[in-house]
């Protein structure tokens, strides 16, 4: 960034002609700020010279500036000698200014210098236009014009046009207008009948009726959701190395469509995306809305802890960028390593936002189901009561059994496992039938199951029950403490592709860890180095809770710290086995443990510390059902049996219900413990600075940027406050940015050309008063997007003809003043949708899971995507339902500028290339659609001439001219309808909105 700054012509500070001495605040302070303060300010200024403060510049004893005496001022000496700033000497004009200021007495102004105070020609300050409060501008007088229906929008537009001697173009032809507004609002062409009806309707409200109908159509949400998805860089895979598909991310896309179709007020639309899970935790849609926060890429291959921490910082930068650009049109992400070089966003501001969003996590979560939640709570209560009854009944018997086994001194009762093995005796399961059999270099010895670290493991038959929450427990002795990656006990799918295991030393030498497939549930426990396990058996247990929490225990004590993983795995009955001595199958590599497992157990719940401790101190003692029964009187046995049955039935129901409820998963924000955010000098984790509390951007006028939260505030509070701050009615950016976005899609160019950037590097508004009027009107109309659309598309500005006019081209070739409606090519999705609609192939089903026109190849956990042309109605849905992986070649849609969702595309490029022509001309889908179009036309009309007319109606919604008819009839006669249909799909008129 630093270098970038220097590229920009620095001619600014001299812009005020100086008869009077230079103005410190307006000329000198910005000069010092941009040239000197990067080094000469802050806690440790270079050369101990702090030029941001008066006391620094005029330091007693060692002043850098001596008023009136440049020659005695070290600051001037160094600058004049070309030594400062280093490498980039000050331009002459600025030198002159600096000298004049010193000569004229070096009057200081606001102290300390705030580099953001004023906008200069190189950067924006607090006085930047976009940050100022929304004012409702006065609507210009209606000029004398032949336009009969001038809206407020038109009056603002005309005021600018007449300033240049220009005027609006006349209203366009009805057929052109209806085609325009159809594509614009719903992304599909009108049918012939719809065009006819409109052309014939002479009522004053004919157009308004069409607009109302389109806004009420569910296709509106499909069309405009696609725009929003571009902005939030919504993709359906993770990106990076594995690029794993997100099977349930479409719920967010669906929610966006529903929200738009129901005209959810935009402030609520924003709030739910930022904090729906917090604001309405029981509302499934509110949870789905948070898919926004995690719409972007997410790396799942992270290496060691240091790499992991850096990746998280990168991820936060991306999230902050997404939130700032989407809702505020500010690139706050540019202030991670230094203050923003162009906008008044300090580095601290960045970390305040990063703190506010510090709890954002990527993953799938259950969609809340209020009814099921009540039921679950009820069942859980019942189950708890039965469990207590059982405990009362069992406890004396349990103690008695333990006493007989020589373990009667236990204060607490050891928990009951679902499977238990004492390998010192055999591999038999002491509870059920999960008898473990040795394979390869595995043997029974008096010490237990011995494993050779090469091929040896013990494996059980498949589990007869489902297993989600669980605890793995084993007493292990290791052959060496330097071995890396062997598993003591592992629950895995029979192929080993999914597993949870107790693993030794894999990621950190001599440390225990919870291993899992692809490290997806791994984090370091941060436990101590193992020193004893080579000498004696060590007890290690890992408890996996249903909510994904994973906690390790060594010898009955907490091992390091537990953590929240991505969620637990539901291992299925008959599709799960337990192995000992191998991290996961297949056998080999560093997965094999060299050592001995004496005793091991499996529980179907996450044991508490107390339970683990009890189990550890029991020294391997536990009580089986049979032993318990033996100690009970017959009637007790019967009661126990009844209670047990009831217990198991309840547990089963609960499990099923939970299963069903969690079946509704959505890819959304899965909050993490946000921790405390620190300012990072140069964005570097190695140089953490002060603790930063969550907050907003201080330069935004209106809502207070201070959230009044402590640095360690819970995630929920942080995001709630962030949502409040962003959507505050007096946040001027919030409304300005969205009305500009909407305008951009209606006209092809925004009032501000850069919809994601209202900062210094972005465009300047072509119609600032109109922008503010629209924004204030939008707020007044309760943030209704549909009202805003209607306001815009009913304006004469929108309805004018598109033909170029020589007079206007000469003055305003780019049409920034809107003297015409500029024609534009349809986006790739709209081209595809129009081909489907015109050919009659379109499957108009709205909402739900999408389809994929990629062949997805999984290569050892990495997904690859090859475009192809699948046939069938489920693939003939609109393009918004297409699966959108990142970094995949989309085939011919790529060439039509459909963006890779790896990055935000607030403004798509519109290119014209030979590859695009080849795609549309030759691609399998395009040819197939042309064939279907031909079949449809042949069905509707007989004879070449009638067929041509019909084809024209379907493709262009008009009759052919005589020349066109002649040309097309000949082509049909010579080569059949298919060739004509192919030509029409490729024609300029088909893909252009005029």
């Amino acid at each position, binding site marked *: 960034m630093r270098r970038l700054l220097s590229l920009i012509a620095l001619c600014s500070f001299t812009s005020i002609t100086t008869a009077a001495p230079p103005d410190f605040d307006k000329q000198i302070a910005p000069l010092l700020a941009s040239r000197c303060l990067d080094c000469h300010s802050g806690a440790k200024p270079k050369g101990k010279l702090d030029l941001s403060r008066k006391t620094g510049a005029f330091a007693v004893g060692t002043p850098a500036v001596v008023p009136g005496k440049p020659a005695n001022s070290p600051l001037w000496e160094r600058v004049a000698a070309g030594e400062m700033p280093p490498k980039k000497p000050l331009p002459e004009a600025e030198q002159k200014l600096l000298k004049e200021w010193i000569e004229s007495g070096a009057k200081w102004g606001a102290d300390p210098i705030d580099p953001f105070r004023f906008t200069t020609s190189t950067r924006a300050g607090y006085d930047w236009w976009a940050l100022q409060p929304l004012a409702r501008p006065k609507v210009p007088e209606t000029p004398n014009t032949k336009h009969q229906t001038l809206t407020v929008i038109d009056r603002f537009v005309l005021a600018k046009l007449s300033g240049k001697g220009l005027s609006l173009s006349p209203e366009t032809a009805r057929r052109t207008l209806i085609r325009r507004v159809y594509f614009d609002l719903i992304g599909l062409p009108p049918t012939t009948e719809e065009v006819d009806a409109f052309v014939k309707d002479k009522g004053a409200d004919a157009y308004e009726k069409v607009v109302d109908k389109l806004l009420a159509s569910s296709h509106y949400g499909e069309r405009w959701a696609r725009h929003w998805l571009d902005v939030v860089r919504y993709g359906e895979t993770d990106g990076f190395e594995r690029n794993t598909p997100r099977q349930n991310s479409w719920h967010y896309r669906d929610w966006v469509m529903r929200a738009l179709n129901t005209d959810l007020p935009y402030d609520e639309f924003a709030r739910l995306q930022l904090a729906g899970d917090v604001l309405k935790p029981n509302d499934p849609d509110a949870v789905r809305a948070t898919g926004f926060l995690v719409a972007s890429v997410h790396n799942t291959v992270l290496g*060691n802890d240091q790499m992991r921490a850096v990746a998280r910082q990168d991820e936060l930068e991306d999230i902050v960028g997404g939130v700032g650009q989407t809702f505020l049109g500010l690139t706050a992400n540019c202030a991670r390593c230094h203050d923003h070089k162009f906008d008044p966003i300090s580095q601290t501001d960045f970390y305040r936002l990063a703190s506010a969003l510090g709890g954002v996590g990527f993953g799938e979560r259950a969609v809340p189901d209020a009814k099921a939640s009540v039921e679950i709570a009820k069942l859980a209560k019942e189950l708890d009561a039965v469990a207590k009854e059982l405990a009362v009944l069992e406890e004396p018997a349990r103690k008695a059994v333990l006493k007989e086994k020589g373990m009667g001194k236990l204060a607490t009762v050891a928990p009951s496992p679902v499977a238990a093995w004492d390998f010192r005796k055999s591999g038999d399961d002491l509870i059920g039938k999960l008898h473990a059999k040795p394979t390869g270099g595995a043997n029974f010895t008096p010490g237990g199951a011995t494993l050779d670290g090469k091929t040896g493991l013990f494996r059980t038959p498949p589990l007869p029950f489902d297993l989600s929450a669980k605890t793995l427990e084993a007493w292990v002795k290791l052959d060496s403490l*330097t071995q890396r990656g062997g598993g003591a006990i592992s629950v895995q799918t029979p192929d080993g592709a999914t597993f949870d295991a107790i693993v030794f030393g894999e990621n950190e030498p001599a440390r225990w860890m919870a291993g899992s497939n692809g490290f997806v549930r791994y984090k370091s426990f941060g436990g101590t180095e193992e020193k004893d396990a080579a000498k004696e058996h060590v007890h290690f247990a890992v408890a996996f809770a249903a909510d994904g929490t994973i906690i390790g225990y060594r010898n009955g004590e907490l091992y390091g710290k537990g953590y929240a993983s991505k969620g637990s795995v539901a291992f299925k009955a008959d599709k799960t086995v337990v192995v000992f001595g191998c991290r996961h199958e297949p056998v080999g590599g560093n997965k094999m443990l060299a050592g001995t497992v004496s005793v091991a157990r499996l529980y179907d719940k996450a044991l508490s510390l107390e339970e683990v401790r009890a189990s550890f101190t029991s020294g391997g003692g536990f009580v089986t059902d049979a032993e318990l029964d033996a100690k009970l009187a017959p009637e007790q046995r019967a009661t126990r049996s009844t209670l047990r049955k009831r217990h198991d039935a309840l547990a089963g129901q609960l499990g099923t219900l939970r299963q069903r409820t969690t079946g509704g998963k959505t890819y959304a924000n899965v909050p993490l413990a946000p921790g405390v955010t620190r300012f990072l000098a140069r964005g570097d984790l190695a140089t953490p600075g002060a603790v930063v509390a969550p907050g907003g951007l201080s330069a935004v006028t209106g809502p207070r940027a201070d959230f009044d939260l402590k640095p360690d505030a819970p995630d929920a509070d942080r995001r709630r406050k962030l949502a409040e701050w962003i959507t505050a009615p007096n946040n001027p950016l919030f409304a300005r940015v969205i009305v500009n976005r909407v305008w951009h899609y209606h006209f092809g160019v925004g009032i501000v050309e850069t919809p994601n950037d209202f900062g210094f590097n972005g465009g300047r508004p072509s119609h600032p008063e109109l922008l503010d009027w629209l924004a204030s009107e939008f707020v007044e109309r309760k943030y209704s997007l549909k009202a805003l659309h209607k306001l815009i598309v009913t304006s004469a500005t929108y309805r004018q003809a598109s033909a170029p006019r020589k007079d206007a081209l000469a003055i305003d070739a780019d049409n920034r003043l809107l003297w015409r409606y500029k024609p534009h090519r349809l986006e790739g999705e709209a081209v595809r949708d129009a081909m489907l609609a015109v050919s009659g192939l379109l499957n108009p089903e709205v909402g739900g899971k999408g389809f994929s026109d990629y062949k997805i190849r999984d290569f050892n956990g990495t997904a690859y995507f090859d475009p192809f042309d699948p046939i069938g109605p489920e693939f003939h849905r609109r393009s918004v339902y297409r699966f959108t992986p990142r970094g995949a070649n989309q085939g011919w849609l790529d060439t039509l500028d459909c963006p890779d969702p790896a990055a935000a595309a607030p403004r798509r490029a519109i290119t014209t290339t030979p590859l695009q022509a080849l795609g549309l001309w030759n691609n399998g889908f395009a040819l197939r659609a042309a064939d279907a179009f031909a079949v449809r036309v042949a069905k509707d009309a007989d004879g070449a001439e009638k067929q041509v007319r019909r084809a024209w109606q379907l493709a262009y919604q008009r009759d052919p001219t005589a020349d066109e008819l002649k040309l097309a009839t000949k082509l049909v006669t010579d080569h059949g309808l298919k060739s004509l249909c192919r030509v029409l799909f490729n024609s*300029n008129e088909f893909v252009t909105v005029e």
Partner: protein
Amino acid sequence: MHLDRRDFFWSASALGAMAALHQFGGAKPHHSPKAKRAIQISLVGGMSHIDSFDHKPELTKRHGKPLGSDTKPDVFFGQVGLLRKPDWEFKQRGKSGLWVSELFPHIAGVADELTVINSMTADSANHTPALFVQNSGFQFNGYPALGSWLSYGLGSEADDLPAFVVLPDGRGEANGAASNWSNGFLPAQHQGVVFRGGDSPVRDLFPEKAIPAGEEKDSRAALEKLNQMHLERSGSEGALAARMQSYALAAKMQLAVPAVADLSKEPAKLKTQYGFDDAKTADCARRCLLARRLLEKGVRFVQVYSGGPIAGSPRTSWDAHESVKDNHGAEAARIDQPIAALIQDLKQKDMLKDTLVIFTTEFGRTPFAQSAGNVVGTGRDHNKYGFSCWLAGAGCKPGTAFGATDEIGWKVAEHPVAWYDFHATVLHLLGIDHEKLTYYHNGINRRLTNVHGEVVKDVLA
């Protein structure tokens, strides 16, 4: 600020290319380019510098000794075994005496053409982010690749071929696939175009189903006339005229692409030199020869991959965690002869003087084995602290090595060269000031080199 790039055309050739630089970089090319075109051989997975181009006798001496570092190295898998000597013998080559190991006996034969940089450093030791940085300067998906920047800055010399062509390894695409040759936020025409084998080397070059030649011709003519009538009605809109022209160019591409991809007329002897006759080298040989033909016809930048997906067994990349000897031995055998032949061929055709050859890998490998702390294992882990890449051809100082790692090849000791610097140097050789080739996106005038980059002057002739 001028932002409207809508009616822009890829194939505007030299004139358009100048306009692009003019309009958006804000500058004319600052110097006449030394290289008119470039080819990159991209080794995926991480080639061991200490087994190939970075000669470290001290490492051989300390074979079997511990690293002896105060801090534990932060390697990907966290295993720091004992130091391991190279698996191949190093020799001084040619007149220059450049050190190249026996891993690359053929490339060693053209050592006098190489400019080796032994002091590369990377931002990431994680394959895909590292490969992204090597390609685009950023660890995230979504940034334009070097080839895309060159396409944007210089265009193609030919109007019937794309500016940026990608030739993936026959075993598959590297992780990240098309993200590696993405145009990012640059307009779509700057995306790398994959040339496949077969009759239709470019996707959709010909109709998916056969269409009789007469019908094809008449349909084109009808389209042209229809568009012409529409153009007249709509007042000669520039974008519409451009669209018509794109169809004319597409027709030219249909001739040019199969012609350039047809290797049948290349001399048999040359093909043998490239390695067409050997199953090991055939894939790379074909792609290297195709690359030369593409460059000859005016393509600006060709990327040839060595290595497919990262995961899997046996490996299909240079990711030698298990055994450097087995893995690198097999990978080098696939590319060594074709690359050497490419350089000789370019030289023989007098193209090497204005063609830049780039040989890269996303990071290097550790001098210590990836194994338990008391063992000299056979594999090596990722190393972002120091590794080797080389340049050859236009504007480079031939037969030299620049920069150095420490005495065992673990970290850079002299003249570190980050990817930004490497990219700045490549752009410089192609006549571009890396600070001036910019494109506005979301608040920033983006550059290939982000906010960094210094041209490595010492490697320039």
